[in-house]
């Protein structure tokens, strides 16, 4: 019986055997990691064609993760988007609260097949770290998570979750103390411990085969969404919208729609305080091609190839790189990428919470803000799918401070006034 939930790319045109998506991708890694990365490629290729692997992963995706995830229409939210119909792909309802578990379970199974006993991972918002710690608890693997020190503070709840699950969490104090530096530190660990350790990379970046493999594990998002929207709306959407940091939830949603020329694929990058301020992490909007973390892709860098420090209110998008397949989609014109500010994302977060009773992750709120714009552009006949990649529990401290929701905060009153404005907007 064919696999229902593990659905790797059937076309296989990209990447090339060397891991290139057009000009992007490749394998820029130290010699010490070549054997291990090659082993991952070989084992993944075997697993991809092994019905037993697909059966095992499908079983987990259904009975552990809770797939398929729902497609929820959000009409009260959509009133603020020019009347277009908007559906949310509810990856926030997966076990552990985000899309990250799709990839993690696949790679955890692969870790077992390779006979490795220890897993390391980087995390920004903590969602990948939590998912990895979860899979390690489930499979009895030793687990170390690297997280930038700034992120351990703004996502303290997820640090506690990871530790509760038995993982060691290491706060990384080098560089910008965010996701980029967590990846650097994870690579340093991997080089030293590669004989028994798998680096369970959390996004569609890194050296080949990670961009293709992680994409394949997330492809189920778009495959399900495509089937669901056809059932529910009777046609394909005008746009599929997702937030992009490294780009895993976006490629997961987009990929099944790539052959559907009428479906616009729109990635929303973090503009932070505004691209013009320099305080942002909008890699495709403001970056140039370069090499970061093992592959060629767009990178935020200066004229001498030093990586510049990114900024976003969202820890999960606060990254100066992007998966190579997104760079390929951008340059080929198949993908569109726009930048969304902190403020626009936070407004969208509150709007969805108050109109639909769904509190999104700040990451996903960037996609929601994008949908508000795109909906207005499309008008009332528009049909949009937004990937709601994660839930917002982890972000409540950031959101409460942003909106002044703590009792001690006089701004609670101001927030109530804003709400009246929101209601007014929709009329």
């Amino acid at each position: 019986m064919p696999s229902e939930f593990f659905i790797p790319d059937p076309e296989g045109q990209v990447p090339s055997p060397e891991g290139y998506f057009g000009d992007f991708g490749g394998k820029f890694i130290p010699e010490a990691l070549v054997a291990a990365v090659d082993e991952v490629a070989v084992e993944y290729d075997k697993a991809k064609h092994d019905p037993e692997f697909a059966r095992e992963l499908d079983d987990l995706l259904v009975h552990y993760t809770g797939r398929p995830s729902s497609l929820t229409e959000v009409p009260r939210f959509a009133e603020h988007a020019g009347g277009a119909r908007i559906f949310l792909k509810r990856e926030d309802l997966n076990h552990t609260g985000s899309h990250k578990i799709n990839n993690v379970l696949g790679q955890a199974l692969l870790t077992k097949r390779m006979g490795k006993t220890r897993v390391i991972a980087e995390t920004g918002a903590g969602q990948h770290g939590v998912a990895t710690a979860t899979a390690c608890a489930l499979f009895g693997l030793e687990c170390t998570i690297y997280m930038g020190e700034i992120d351990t503070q703004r996502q303290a709840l997820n640090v506690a979750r990871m530790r509760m699950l038995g993982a060691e969490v290491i706060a990384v104090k080098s560089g910008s103390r965010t996701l980029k530096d967590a990846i650097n530190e994870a690579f340093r660990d991997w080089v030293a411990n590669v004989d028994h350790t798998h680096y369970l990379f959390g996004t569609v970046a890194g050296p080949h085969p990670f961009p293709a493999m992680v994409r394949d594990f997330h492809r189920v998002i778009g495959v399900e969404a495509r089937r669901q929207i056809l059932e529910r709306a009777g046609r394909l959407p005008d746009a599929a919208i997702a937030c992009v940091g490294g780009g895993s939830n976006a490629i997961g949603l987009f990929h099944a729609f790539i052959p559907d020329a009428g479906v616009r694929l729109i990635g929303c990058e973090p503009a932070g305080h505004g691209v013009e301020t320099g305080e942002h992490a909008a890699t495709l909007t403001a970056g140039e091609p370069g090499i970061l973390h093992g592959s060629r892709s767009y990178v935020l860098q200066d004229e001498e190839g030093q990586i510049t420090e990114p900024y976003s209110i969202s820890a999960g998008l606060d990254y100066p790189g992007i998966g190579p397949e997104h760079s390929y989609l951008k340059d080929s014109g198949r993908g569109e990428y726009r930048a969304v500010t902190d403020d626009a994302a936070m407004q969208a977060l509150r709007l969805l919470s108050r109109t639909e009773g769904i509190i999104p992750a700040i990451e996903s709120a960037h996609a929601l803000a994008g949908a508000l714009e795109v909906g207005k552009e499309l008008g009332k006949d528009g049909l949009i799918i937004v990937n709601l990649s994660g839930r917002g529990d982890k972000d409540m401290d950031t959101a409460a401070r942003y909106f002044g929701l703590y009792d001690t905060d006089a701004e609670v009153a101001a927030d109530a006034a804003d709400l009246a404005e929101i209601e007014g907007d929709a009329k």
Partner: protein
Amino acid sequence: MSGNIQLLTDTLAGARAEGRSALIAYLPAGFPTVDGGIEAIKAVFDGGADVVEVGLPHSDPVLDGPVIQTADDIALRGGVKIADVMRTVKEAYEATGKPVLVMTYWNPIDRYGVERFTAELAEAGGAGCILPDLPVQESALWREHAEKHGLATVFVVAPSSKDERLAQITAAGSGFVYAASLMGVTGTRASVGAQAQDLVERTRATGTGLAVCVGLGVSNAEQAAEVAGFADGVIVGSAFVKRMLDAPDDRAGVEAVRELAGDLAKGVRGQA
């Protein structure tokens, strides 16, 4: 002007003719300042180093441990630019007549432009480059320009490298082969990996005529003497940087690296 690959080859052959290993030292450019870094490199040559690798600091040094990360941070905060790295190479070479390489990550060169970088490095009197995150399969463009400008391409081999890869790497490389003594990032270690000798032997078994030099973890004369027993060269980086970080002032740092180079120079002559 052509680069100094021949000077590098001759220097390593000269050490072999003396029946000893060569001493190869690493120091980052711009640390603690550009001029201070140049003084330190001259002192290391004066103390007895045969070859110096000048680090071009990078914002994301994924193969470096905390010591070199700290030095890179200091250099980058001080505003070091590629032009400063070129000046460092030029002044170190002109003052000593000895081979000077650059060691860095691939992105700064990719961004700067391979042709521009190799032309300027050759013009400065550089002998070649070590690019530890540019594996042989991705290196064709670099090698084309390096060869055109008379610069060596020094590849790293690791204990995990399979024999067939060692053959590919030694066939594509020039200058010497950098054998990583252990699986890990740069930094001083109490002992040099036991895998080092095995790796040197496997590398030589490819039939390469290149010198095989061992780096990672070597920090004192005893370790240098041990490595010199089986390798053509001993590469020391973090131990020099650490001496400078620990020194009370820049002047003392220069003297400390001169002294360490002297000790290590005895070590590579089996006099530890």
